[in-house]
């Protein structure tokens, strides 16, 4: 450290931090790997979708904002898939590029298409609040690797919530057209919320190593309700979708996302760039 507080400022002096959170020698059990796959696939598919907006958002600044959020999520996906792969000797790339649709474990909400900007923001609102509630609890996991990944992710998703909230308020209170669009978008993504709160045999077996999905229902719905109230919007009265993503049953959109995500790696196996 320079003694002189008025001394030179070196802005190019950057220390690169670890890109993979919790990457060590720990090997996940089959159950923990399956859970990490669920979270990793949620993040991977949403990251893939947000990347589409780069060059297509309303302004360049919003291209960068959505791109940054997508890259945050891709970082979470890499850490989670890396950890999931330790159980079966596979790499993060093996899991991202070489599994087929039925082997993915993402929930339907994360597969729903970008739609117009309002649909992307409505989906961001639900996914970010869900991920924020999830990771802020997963930091207390009895599994040290899951806890470390969550600790890195939670600060990032807190900003994603803020971004979605800011846009919700502006779309809801903006113009007749923006309010119409966000109302439609909210009703379109709402049916996929319920799937996120369903416990199953895996989450019950894992106990304190994970966050029980049902424990997230109240905090997520409360946080969403508070933002909708500020937006002067009602929670849509629409039936919940069947879901089934955690067992590999997906909405029709996932196949298209995977085709785009995987085509290059599959056409040129082992290629690097």
């Amino acid at each position, binding site marked *: 450290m320079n003694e*002189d*507080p*008025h001394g030179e*400022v070196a*802005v190019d002096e*950057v220390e690169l931090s670890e890109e993979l959170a919790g990457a060590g020698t720990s090997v996940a059990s089959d159950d923990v790997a399956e859970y990490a796959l669920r979270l990793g696939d949620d993040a991977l598919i949403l990251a893939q979708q947000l990347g589409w907006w780069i060059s297509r958002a309303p*302004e*360049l*600044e*919003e291209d*960068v*904002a959505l791109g*940054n959020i997508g890259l945050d999520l891709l970082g979470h996906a890499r850490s989670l898939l890396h950890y999931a792969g330790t159980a079966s000797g596979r790499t993060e790339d093996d899991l991202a590029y070489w599994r087929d649709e039925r082997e993915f474990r993402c929930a339907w909400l994360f597969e729903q298409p970008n739609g117009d900007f309002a649909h992307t923001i409505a989906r961001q609102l639900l996914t970010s609040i869900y991920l924020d509630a999830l990771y802020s609890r997963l930091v207390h996991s009895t599994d040290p690797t899951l806890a470390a990944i969550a600790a890195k992710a939670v600060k990032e998703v807190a900003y994603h919530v*803020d*971004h979605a909230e*800011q846009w919700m308020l*502006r779309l809801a209170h*903006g*113009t*007749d*057209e923006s309010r119409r669009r966000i109302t439609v978008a909210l009703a379109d993504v709402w049916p996929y919320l319920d799937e996120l709160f369903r416990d199953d045999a895996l989450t019950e077996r894992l106990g304190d190593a994970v966050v029980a999905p049902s424990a997230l229902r109240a905090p997520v719905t409360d946080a969403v309700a508070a933002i909708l109230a500020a937006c002067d919007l009602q929670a849509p009265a629409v039936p919940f979708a069947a879901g089934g993503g955690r067992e590999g049953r997906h909405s029709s959109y996932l196949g298209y996302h995977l085709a785009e995500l995987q085509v290059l790696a599959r056409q040129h196996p082992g290629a690097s760039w």
Partner: protein
Amino acid sequence: MTTPGADENEAWPLWEVFVRANRGLSHVHVGSLHAPDADLAIRNARDVYTRRNEGVSIWVVPAEAITTSDPDARDAFFESPAGKNYRHARYYDKAEGVKHL
């Protein structure tokens, strides 16, 4: 209500961005960006100008709130100090113990 964007020439207003680096002392102008309002301007600045750890504090100022000197009046404004070396404190012996001069 009118619909922004109905006129394709309409765009978000311009904001000037100032960032205080981690170990710097003052906010430094780093560039400009578009945003619909001040709150989003701060967030856009965070995304565009601090994504590589460049800062710990951000100011945004509406570009239209900045008054600039007239580039055509540059001679009258800035050439006058030339040849007035007495304005520089160069003819004095530096007292002992004074740093940062």
